[in-house]
């Protein structure tokens, strides 16, 4: 029982991390119909920015996490939003009318650029760094014999708040309406007076800000950051991408559902079957979903209603 609860908790925190990253893939796909392969590098930079700001602010201790946490989160989200905006403006917008393959290759190019630029001495360097402890790793409470640390609670609550905020933004605001309109039909939306370029820019900024939150959560959860070109980041981005596809890429709720599904299957498989095979479970699900329900779990159901 203890192990079961523990694995559930692990799945919940990992799912929160995947969900925040998967949303970036799905938002961009929803609006522009292309996969932003540089997204995982925005996550990396978000995590490193949290490290940099934590250092600059000198709040490396756990003195006042209530102030330090939100400030660092806001700052790294702002930097990544600006980065997302710049990437779209410089790399993707000129190719808006080009074949989709060109944009995909450009995305891989941007990804390599960010990975290798991050390794420069005056950016982040190549050394692994310890993320300052913003939150205590002490247990907040004990549930069925499982110690639930403060950091895990904060991770889940933070992810939940951001996901609810995104739901509100997409479904309850004018910007969200415009995003959905562009997603439905770009040209018609433009004819109806929607500023498509602005909507696309906002989409990239929102997705990148969520990626920064995901990166910061990664840093809080694991405590160490590897250099920007390490395969850890690629694998993290790839799994979040799988989550988005499994949930139905382009679908906001699907990405969240896919993220938690992937995380729970990965965690339960690793705990009760073989930990060596954890990536096999993740990519096995991807293959199964692509064969059985190519639109993703939530993707197709809505399509049928249209």
């Amino acid at each position, binding site marked *: 029982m*203890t*192990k079961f609860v*523990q*694995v559930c908790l*692990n799945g919940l925190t990992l799912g929160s991390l995947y969900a925040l990253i998967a949303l970036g893939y*799905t*938002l961009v796909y*929803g*609006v522009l119909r292309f*996969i932003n*392969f540089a997204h995982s590098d925005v996550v990396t930079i978000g995590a490193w920015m949290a490290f940099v700001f934590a250092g600059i602010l000198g709040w490396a201790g756990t003195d006042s996490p209530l102030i330090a946490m939100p400030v660092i989160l806001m700052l790294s989200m702002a930097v990544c939003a600006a980065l997302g905006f710049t990437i779209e403006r410089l790399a993707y917008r000129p190719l808006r009318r080009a074949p989709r*393959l060109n944009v*995909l290759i450009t995305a*891989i190019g941007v990804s390599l650029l960010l990975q290798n630029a991050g*390794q420069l001495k005056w950016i982040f360097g*190549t*050394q*692994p*760094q*310890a993320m300052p*402890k913003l939150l205590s790793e002490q247990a907040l409470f004990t549930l069925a014999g499982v*110690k639930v640390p403060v*950091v895990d609670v904060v991770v889940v609550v933070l992810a939940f708040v951001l996901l609810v905020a995104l739901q509100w933004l997409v479904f309850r605001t004018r910007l969200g309406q415009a995003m*959905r309109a562009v*997603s*439905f039909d770009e040209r018609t939306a433009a004819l109806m007076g929607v500023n498509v370029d602005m909507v696309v820019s906002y989409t990239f900024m929102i997705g990148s800000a969520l990626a920064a939150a995901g990166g910061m959560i*990664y840093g809080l959860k*694991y*405590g*160490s950051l*590897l*250099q920007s*070109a*390490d*395969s*850890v980041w*690629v*694998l993290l981005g*790839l799994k979040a*991408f*799988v989550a988005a*596809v499994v949930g139905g890429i*382009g*679908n906001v709720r699907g990405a969240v559902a896919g993220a938690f599904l992937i995380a729970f299957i990965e*965690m339960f498989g*690793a*705990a009760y079957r073989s*930990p*060596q095979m*954890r*990536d096999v479970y993740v*990519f096995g699900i991807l293959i199964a979903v*692509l064969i059985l329900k*190519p*639109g993703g779990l*939530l*993707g*197709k159901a*809505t*399509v049928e209603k249209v």
Partner: protein
Amino acid sequence: MNLSGWRPRRPFISAVISAAGLALAVLAVMSGSGCEQKRNATGSGGGGGGTGTGGAPATGPILIGHYASMTGSEATFGQSTDQGIRLAIKERNAAVDAGTIKGRKIKLETLDDAGKPQDAGNAVTRLITQDKVTALLGEVASGLSMVGGQIAQQYTVPMISPSSTNPQVTQIGDMVFRVCFLDDFQGNVMARFAREELKAQKAAILFDQGQPYSKGLADYAEKSFKELGGTVVTRQAYGSSDPDVSAQLSTIKEAAPDVIFLPGYYTQAATIMRQARKLGITAAFVGGDGWDSDKLEEIGGDAVQGSYYSNHYSPEEDRAEVKNFVASYQAEFKVLPDGLAALGYDAANLLFAAMDKAPSLRGKDLAATLAAVKEFSGVTGTITIDPNRDASKSAVVVKVEHGRRVPVKRYAP
């Protein structure tokens, strides 16, 4: 509600599949450090393709090559080793200038392999064919030394690995040497320490399945621990690119071991110990020389305090070689030398000693001289090269204690 009302089109699906496939291929290349070379040794003079060092000039400084992970997730390994080598060269060249040593000066060419097998292969090929180095130093990671060793053997250029502990490394052929102990010995030391000093009865093992070093050490520790009457309650693996080991740790927690063997590299080892303490695991961790970096404590914080690892030396040991080395290293680089710096220093000095004694600097002659080294007194202990071109020497178990590496016990070979 759906963000988009799109209809899935066939081209999209194939795009997703091909994109995912492409990304996987990229990943496979990037995480390839787990590649384990199983090719057989080519034996002496095998292939006959090498020109050796025929193009090297007979006067002026001797050029030696060093390939190392100067960047990447094991960057401190390469950088420490390189600093150790540079210190040895500086001292040697100063001695030649002063006339206390008869011999030629040394020049070093260091190439970065970023901790990746393909880059290591390229670096070694370049050092041998373009720079025409007389001898090679490197690598730290066993997986990479196996790649470099194959090439050195093919071109008959002697190579000394300062710190690759996997037994397969020197089995490549008569050109490949090392100055560190082997994993079977190190695994035995870890097991003996856990059994005799920590009085552990039940052990858990958690290793990196992508690193031959980690897997080999896990196997030897397990074998020795069982032979000494202990039981291994669970054996878990993690991936080199997987930061999350909570599932494995949950299983380990349930098995309630007295000691956990964690023969990985420092970055992940520190992260794992943090996660373990967070989950409430209180058992002592015992690691290998892959832990030896200041980053271990920087990343692990309180979680790594009181853990033990077997190492080549401790800067706190009371020997003249250690004291002199630590003093001059600190004067030069302003930091405390880790075990890899000490091994780099020893490997370079052992190579210089052989160069001065060898009848010529041709690969075969130099290798024969290296093979005959007996009782070389280095910072990391007294080194004798055995018939397998491995170093027969002792190991020390150190305790991590707030920035200090307290030597607990030294084990003779």
